[in-house]
């Protein structure tokens, strides 16, 4: 139960109308999530799993259609 904010940039190169290459960099910042857990003894603790995680990636694609 979280929020992801992703920004990305891409460079596209079409060799013709049907063939292309893509090069993309993107980054997601994960935030939010369950803030508090209450156990059987009534103790409240924080368990904000994955909060502040940063997922970075590079992707490329060769695409062709007919």
């Amino acid at each position: 139960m979280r929020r992801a904010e992703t920004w990305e940039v891409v460079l596209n190169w079409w060799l013709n109308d049907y063939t292309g290459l893509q090069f993309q960099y993107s980054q997601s910042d994960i935030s939010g999530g369950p803030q508090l857990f209450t156990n059987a003894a009534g103790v409240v603790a924080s368990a904000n799993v994955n909060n502040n995680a940063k997922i970075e990636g590079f992707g490329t694609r060769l695409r062709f259609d007919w």
Partner: protein
Amino acid sequence: MKVKWKGAPELSSADGKFSFKVRGRLQTDYNAIDQDFDITGRPDVNAAELRRARLGVEGVLFYNVAYKFEVDFANDVTAIKDAYVEYDGLADGLSLRAGNFKTPNSLDEMTSSRFLTFLERAAFVEAWGLDRQIGAGVIYAQDHFTLSAGIFGPEPFDDEIWLKDVKTGAARATFAPINREVNGVHQVIHLGASWRGREGAEDRRSPPSGTSISNPFNDELFRYRARGADLHLADRFVSTPQVFNEDQFWGVEGAVIWGPVHVVGEYTQLEGDIARARFPGTPPLLCCNGKDPTYDGWYVEAGWFLTGETRSYKEGEFGRIKVKNPVLGGGKGGGWGAWQIAGRYDVIDLTDQATTIQGNPTSGTFPSSLSANCTQCGEQKPGRLSSIGG
């Protein structure tokens, strides 16, 4: 008999009453992803995949009856994609369609993967489950507006199992007050809105004999999740439990094309209804403090063709780029091709009603009522507490 080149030969009768074309697409990806192991516990990704490998046919069956059938063979899975028959003989721009096709929602979803600016669609498209489903619909399309609506059953993979269970209605309207070419400059202003309502299975059933489904919830209930970095080989880092049996989606969309520049934005909301009857007494533990959450997803993107091309637009969708100076192309080859740079900011927010849940974070255990159903709890992380609940 006439032969026309459209990426592959299209054969048609001289009077246009019949036509036939083999169609397909091949998309080969490589992803390198840092998944922030210290926080998430997920290893980095360095992998290649056949993202799409489709083969199909399309054409005119007879006079005003058209057809399209395409199968995706990527990743050792055979998946039926577009598979429909369409009749457009009632009036100009009016089509009746039946088969397996996309529910009419979202500009990003309606745009073919062949013509996407980025590798993947915005996160909400996968998260909300916008996809093809079996159904029937009506489409009315003119240069400056479109209206489309349909009723749908399940996705094709489910058709032998949950045929009568999932019921979906969807509609989309678009308006393009400007859709013209002035002094060689392509100009479009596009506005649109769409809606979809889904209702899942009404009763819990055991999997049919002979199937490999171990948990009937996997097909009966909805959940919403998205991958990191908007890349297909990344793990899913935002997710809800699989506890919803109805949902309502709506979205608004806008786009501007002005010569080589385009700007697009969409805002969507989805309200999920928890299947309370399935989990008597436990909804507060399962999700969202027992309340029906409202999630949202949106994006803005902008792009620029350095070489002067423009995004094509027709009937409320983006289409194929026409390259001015192709690198490859028989007698027309030898140019630079078309170069485009683009950026996108994409947000998906599944935090509504996510404040407090019950469990034991120190030991990673859950109440027994939850543990029994923990395959529905969104993504799991070995040795750590999952993001179950909200």
